[in-house]
């Protein structure tokens, strides 16, 4: 029963990352409340899920490199740097907004 509970969240991409996700900046997702081990689902889980399930582009390494979000991508949980919120271990809450920003360098 509990494993079928889902959490509604919003995932956004900007700075060019949206091009890896069908060109869409804003995605409304329903994610399971618990992972396969019965633990609360985290942002780390979400990153894997996005890479494996949501990303249609082949260039996975533009999003995840060596098992981590690639350098140059900022992850924001409800508009705060995820390092302020426990990074990958942050447990997703209903209606959380997770924003992935690719750093720009042009000028």
């Amino acid at each position: 029963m509990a494993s079928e509970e889902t959490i509604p969240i919003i995932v956004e991409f900007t700075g060019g990352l949206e091009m890896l996700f069908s060109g869409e900046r804003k995605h409304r997702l329903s994610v399971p409340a618990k992972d396969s081990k019965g633990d609360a689902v985290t942002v780390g889980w979400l990153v894997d899920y996005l890479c494996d399930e949501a990303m249609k582009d082949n260039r996975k390494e533009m999003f995840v490199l060596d098992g981590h979000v690639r350098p140059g991508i900022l992850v924001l949980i409800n508009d705060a740097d995820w390092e302020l919120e426990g990074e990958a271990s942050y447990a997703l809450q209903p209606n959380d907004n997770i924003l992935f920003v690719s750093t720009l360098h042009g000028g």
Partner: protein
Amino acid sequence: VTQGNWPLELEEYKRYGRQMIVPNVGIQGQLRLKAASLLIVGAGGLGCPAAAYIAGAGVGTIGIVDGDIVETSNLHRQILHSTAKVGMKKVESAIEFLASLNPNVRFIAHNEHLSPQNAKEIVENYDVVLDCTDHPTSRYLISDICVLLHKPLISASALRTDGQLIVLNSPPLPHGDPSGGPCYRCVFPKPPPAESVVSCGDGGILGPVVGIMGVLQALEAIKLIAAGKLTAREGEKAGEASMLLFSANSNPPFRSVRLRARRQKCFACSKEGGLTLESLSSGSLDYVLFCGVTTPVKIL
């Protein structure tokens, strides 16, 4: 000719009157602007509008660093360079425009790219730095030298229809002092892989998008200077650092996000980091290899 006991000349009261009556500027803010020196690294899409408004506001000394020459493909967004200036050095072209806008300002031309070898010598003469460059290599170098020399840094970037703005190292406290503002390496400890780096030349850019980011840099600089925040006050602690994101096609187009404070083990601004003036200028930090770039770096 100064006007007796008046701290500014009559022409300056006329020229700056509209900004001097803004609360938070006043005569004291105007005198601080006049006494300040500011370095703009990059005379391109960000540097052009930033320089125009900073010169207009009466910042006393403005230095500009760039080794490029004006090209036709710059003109849609680098609005200080006119068509007749194609082929001219960007720094010379920009200063010609700026001096005709405000002859009260002292302009200093640095007709070369910023490098580990010249960074200290150039940057140490200024109070505040604007990063208006086009590549992560220069962004790490500029942040490092600003940390080492205790200069606040206003960094912006743009690509296609997006822009980003951060005020870094503000207040510019010595490395190891957690009350200082975060540096570029605190926010981005590892450089992006070379294949993820797209320049405006390759990715394209809408002129007003980079223009807005450059004018925002000018605004942050003027606010910082007029408020007397070029150096830390006794006991001052950094406020919450933030990044402003702009996406021309999103609604809402602007979004502010909260960044972390100084990173306890930051290579540049922590006590244990290991960055020194010597390691930087000796070339032992290879900024080009560091970012995985093999082709020559171009500050656009």
